[in-house]
């Protein structure tokens, strides 16, 4: 009789567990189903309540549900994780620290979810920082990588303080190719140069340096952005065209700026209401999807092999490295990149900029190089 009762209880326990797991999976599915314009909000709001009541032991299941989720759904999941962790801490419930650590170390998970797991872990186990971060200089999570690079920089600075040049250079050399944030890259490259080292920053970051440029074309009343000038119809680097003030032809230009800046005021002409084009060849050893990251204060358009990748009809409204990012597929062999940069009529000092910077990277910011020098 006892055996029957025990079996019955085990079946009930198993069924309850299975039902709970199914309920959790269903709730995750509902939250992952949210989309733009409020799509799926009603179902997701109800499901979110169930997720927020999940046991702390289920945190890594919730974190794992961020893998492949769209950015809206990832935020729904993230706030549920916040709620579960917050309640657990308040109620003295143990967090699954070992599982969290395994989750952090598994690079196949969503980068941001791993960072979130790491922060939960470290808040309960501060030693995890020293245990995990040093091995993360090449991590796909930019936040984890940043912390790891910061530690290497600290090591270099300590060596500098000890006047151990060799150790400092070695540490900075380790930090530089790993760094993805401009403040760290700037600091490290400056220090290396102070130590007498050469730094090929431009190449390290994947900036395109060799350009063919042509202009100026007309941009009166900002009509040039939509105007289809000859370089958009054909890329014949031997041709001459009617420009704003007469004939224009392609000129070769190689920028030496650390951050790949092509200053059109210097190379073409400093003038208002003008358009210039930059073209570059890019050779890829295989078909691959890459990110084109362009920075400009000006209105810009970018085509790769004739296909539009980025269009921003905005002038002098702030700028920052990697301002606009567009994904494109490079074909195996020769690819043609065309950039259009428009200057408007604004006369303020801060509206002088007429320039662009372009680099090619993978999604983590690792540079992607043209496999043979552009002609």
């Amino acid at each position, binding site marked *: 009789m006892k055996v029957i009762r025990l079996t019955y209880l085990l079946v009930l326990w198993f069924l309850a567990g299975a039902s709970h797991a199914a309920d959790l999976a269903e709730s995750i599915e509902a939250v992952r189903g*949210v989309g*733009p*314009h*409020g799509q799926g*909000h*009603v179902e*997701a*709001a109800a499901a*979110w*309540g169930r997720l*927020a009541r999940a046991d702390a032991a289920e945190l890594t299941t919730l974190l794992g549900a961020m893998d492949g989720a769209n*950015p*809206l759904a*990832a*935020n*729904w999941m*993230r*706030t*549920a994780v*916040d*709620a579960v962790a*917050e309640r657990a801490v308040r109620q003295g419930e143990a967090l699954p620290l070992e599982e969290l650590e395994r989750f952090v170390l598994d690079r196949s998970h969503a980068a*941001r979810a791993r960072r979130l797991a790491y922060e939960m872990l470290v808040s309960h186990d501060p030693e995890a920082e020293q245990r995990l971060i040093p091995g993360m200089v090449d991590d796909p999570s930019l*936040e984890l990588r*940043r912390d790891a690079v910061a530690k290497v920089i600290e090591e270099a600075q300590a060596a500098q303080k000890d006047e151990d040049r060799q150790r400092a250079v070695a540490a900075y050399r380790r930090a530089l190719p790993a760094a993805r*944030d401009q*403040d760290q890259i700037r600091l490290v490259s400056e220090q290396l140069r102070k130590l007498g080292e050469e730094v090929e920053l431009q190449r390290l970051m994947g900036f395109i340096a060799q350009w063919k440029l042509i202009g100026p074309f007309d941009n009166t009343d900002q009509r040039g952005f939509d105007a289809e000038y000859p370089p958009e119809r054909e890329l014949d680097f031997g041709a001459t065209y009617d420009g704003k003030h007469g004939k224009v032809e392609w000129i070769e230009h190689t920028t030496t700026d650390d951050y790949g800046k092509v200053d059109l005021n210097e190379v073409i002409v400093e003038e208002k209401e003008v358009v210039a084009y930059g073209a570059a060849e890019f050779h890829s050893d295989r078909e691959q999807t890459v990110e084109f990251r362009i920075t400009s204060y000006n209105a810009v358009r970018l085509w790769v092999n004739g296909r539009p990748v980025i269009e*921003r*009809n*905005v*002038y002098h*409204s*702030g*700028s*920052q490295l990697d*301002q606009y990012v567009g994904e494109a597929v490079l074909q195996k062999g020769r690819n043609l990149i065309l950039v259009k940069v428009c200057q408007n009529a604004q006369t303020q000092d801060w509206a002088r900029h007429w320039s662009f910077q372009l680099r090619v990277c993978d999604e983590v910011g690792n540079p992607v190089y043209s496999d043979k020098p552009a002609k």
Partner: protein
Amino acid sequence: MHRFILALTILAGMFGQPAGAQWRQFRGSDNRSVSHETGLPGRFDAETGENIAWKAPLPGRGASGPIVVGDRVIVTASEGVRQDRLHVLCFDAATGNRLWHRQLWATGSTVSHPFGAVAAPTPASDGELVFAFFGSNDLACFDLDGNLKWFRGLTYESPLTRNDVGMASSPLVVVDVVVVQMEAQGAPFAAGIDRKTGETTWRIDRTQGSMWTSPTLLPGETPDQDLVLLQGRDALTAHDPRTGAVVWAFSVPCHSTSSVTADQGRVYLQADGLNALRPDRAAGEAELLWHELKLGSGAPSAVVHEERVYVLRSVGIVCADARDGAILWQLRMKGPFWATPVLADGRLYCVNHGGLVQVVELGEKGRIVADCMLEEGILGSPAVAPGALYFRSNANLWKISSVDSP
């Protein structure tokens, strides 16, 4: 008698405090930067702790102001080298204890000027729900216990809608919608988002051009007649909050950072000096009552109360007669100012970016009665609630209250 007071207390708790006793959105529940609270401290000091009830550390940074909903203070922040970690934090007003903290990842652009923050818009509340808006045009709705009700990524949906200097317009709750205004060079629009479901009730395209002003409430004679004022590069427009339809318009290039103020049926608009307007719904326009160049300001919005208009300029405050714009008095002060001042308890609390709060006693002439130092990095306007003022710097949320206050 005690039982009667207890019953009243319970009833007050059940039905909440009147809207005026809270500070539910940018420039207060009625959107005018005026509070009827009394018993507020006339002076305070961060260093000595004088009248500092508590301070709570905040992550990252923020230009947004705090809001007060019942016994809770809510504030937003943004963090990270890319400013893409967005925080919504809720504190117990009595103790400063953090009640809940939710984080989001920005889905829109976070490229912005380093002086500001992606957490620039002040959140808003209808008393039950909190609407946290960010410069990345992410709009999240939580209940007062931190439960997520919905989340919209408005730039995720409309990728060209962004301003790489940063966006700062605060949301406005009116009728059943949260009104958001995203005025930029690329794909600008304003929208009324259903506060319960997060779905779009209406959406209107706006004129291209960057603006950092916030939608403003223009109260009607009855709540049914309330309108929303939107400033643009070419006009001030008044909209029906249910449909977004334009009810009246006044053509003028509006100030890009100082938000319009409504009081007693008049509208005070910064546009190359201060303009006082009287709307005419039937005619679909507004009449210009007066214009005063000397009342032009920077970022802070004008405060209007009891037929006096107060304009905070870079070097001081100017008080004018709200009926004709005649200047009554001026006072030199230490700027620069980004935050709109608040008027409460017969005083104007003006906080500069350096964290110096200059308390101006109002009367026939204004008089600075106290210089109160908090800390550097204050861009958001303070909130006023029973017996207390709340300031937020980049680093901390401060409650200012005298010990004897309720």
